[in-house]
């Protein structure tokens, strides 16, 4: 049966992996390729790279980071988000080694380009990143470039419903980086048509993940900072999810993590 996924999320700012807190505070952690290599070795089900300064500064995708990741020989599927301005950018990102692309600003700037991207890569390769919060019992969609909130655009929801976009990454941006703080109301209020949601932001504990995975619309959960705070965090989180349909924790997972001397 199709398993639910635990996604390792790496936030990148100015070319460095950072710990991210509430979309407003960042602490440097190291080279993205080192963090990604660890997630690959530790058996993450997917790895998501979010380069958060690219659209704000109109820099386009972080091709330099993708080039470095390309050399890692990753054995884990890679999703890339950040600075994608057009369908051509998305295709270039895939040609540099990403398996899927994640769009945020493009949803607001040029939904036509998202449709074009879907036709070129296939909808299964297109993920919508939606920073959300709950305000007065309703979902508020964060425009992080303008620091404003709006209601969800019906055209974006239509793209999710008509099969242009395969999955939505629901980011609890207020609680990002705060342990155990993800607001499950974001998932419950989101008008998903099926199992197509990825929850992210403030997810750190197995019990939290188990509650989310019990919801009929959740297919995956992303964990960011907290995977870097303790040893074998992916294995530990998975070990705490015995009733969830999920690949068992695996370690090691690639040839590179098996030293030749063993």
């Amino acid at each position, binding site marked *: 049966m199709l398993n639910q996924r635990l996604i390792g999320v790496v936030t990148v700012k100015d070319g460095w992996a950072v710990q991210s807190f509430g979309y407003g505070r960042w602490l440097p952690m190291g080279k993205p390729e080192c963090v990604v290599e660890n997630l690959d070795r530790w058996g993450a089900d997917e790895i998501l790279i979010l380069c958060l300064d690219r659209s704000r500064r109109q820099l386009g995708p972080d091709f330099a980071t993708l080039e470095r990741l390309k050399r890692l020989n990753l054995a884990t599927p890679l999703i890339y988000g950040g600075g994608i301005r057009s369908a051509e950018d998305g295709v270039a990102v895939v040609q540099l080694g990403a*398996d*899927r692309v994640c769009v945020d600003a493009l949803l607001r700037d040029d939904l036509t380009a998202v449709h074009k991207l879907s036709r070129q890569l296939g909808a299964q390769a297109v993920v919508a990143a939606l920073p959300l919060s709950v305000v007065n019992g309703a979902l508020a969609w964060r425009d992080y470039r303008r620091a404003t909130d709006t209601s969800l655009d019906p055209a974006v929801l239509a793209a999710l419903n008509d099969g242009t976009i*395969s999955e939505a990454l629901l980011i609890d941006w207020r609680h990002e980086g705060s342990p155990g703080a993800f607001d499950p109301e974001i998932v419950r209020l989101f008008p998903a048509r099926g199992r197509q949601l990825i929850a992210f932001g403030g997810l750190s504990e197995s019990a939290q993940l188990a509650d989310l995975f019990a919801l009929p619309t959740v297919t995956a959960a992303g964990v960011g900072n907290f995977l870097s705070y303790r040893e074998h965090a992916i294995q530990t989180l998975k070990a705490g999810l015995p009733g969830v349909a999920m690949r068992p924790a695996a370690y090691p997972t*690639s040839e590179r993590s098996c030293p030749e001397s063993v």
Partner: protein
Amino acid sequence: MSRRGIGIVDYGVGNHTSVWRTLYTLGYRCKVTSRPEELDTMDLLVLPGVGAFPAAMQAIHARGLATYLRAAAAADRPLLGICLGMQMLADSSTEYGETPGLGLIPGRVDAIGSGLWHIGWNSIDASPADPLVGRSASESFYFNHSYAVDCPIEFAVAHATLGRRFPVVTRRGRIVGVQFHPEKSQLAGRQLLTDIIGGLLHA
């Protein structure tokens, strides 16, 4: 002793790097190319694929590779299609309208189901006795697609289930297609590639 060579067919679509690196680390001599004279020197051809079926077939035809691949199959050269590459081995697809495929393994590509995506890790169902995929009979692999091949049972080597059961490994002689991404399926993928490529080269 010379290493076996694998030609990764480059038709300008998708990510060839992951496939190249995985096969290279398995010990093969690998070349990503669209040039027939270079592909001719290789022991096995790999047709990777990411994207939508019509765009990929258009790219294959634009480079004259459809004719080349059909001739290679007719000459009994081993060929492995991965993900969309597996779908292109079939007769046709309904993705964004009816588009003819390479017609190397009988079958038709159709939507898995309305609004159904097969994204993530799923186990495959195969006979443990199968020489190519038997050792991977209960392993999980990474899938990322919404269309699947429907083929006569004699060409279906392994299946997966998402709402319905559908073929995820197909075979006709020395031509094999895998719907998932073995190059992104960690140790399980490496094992499967080792078995399939080794099996095809010695078939």
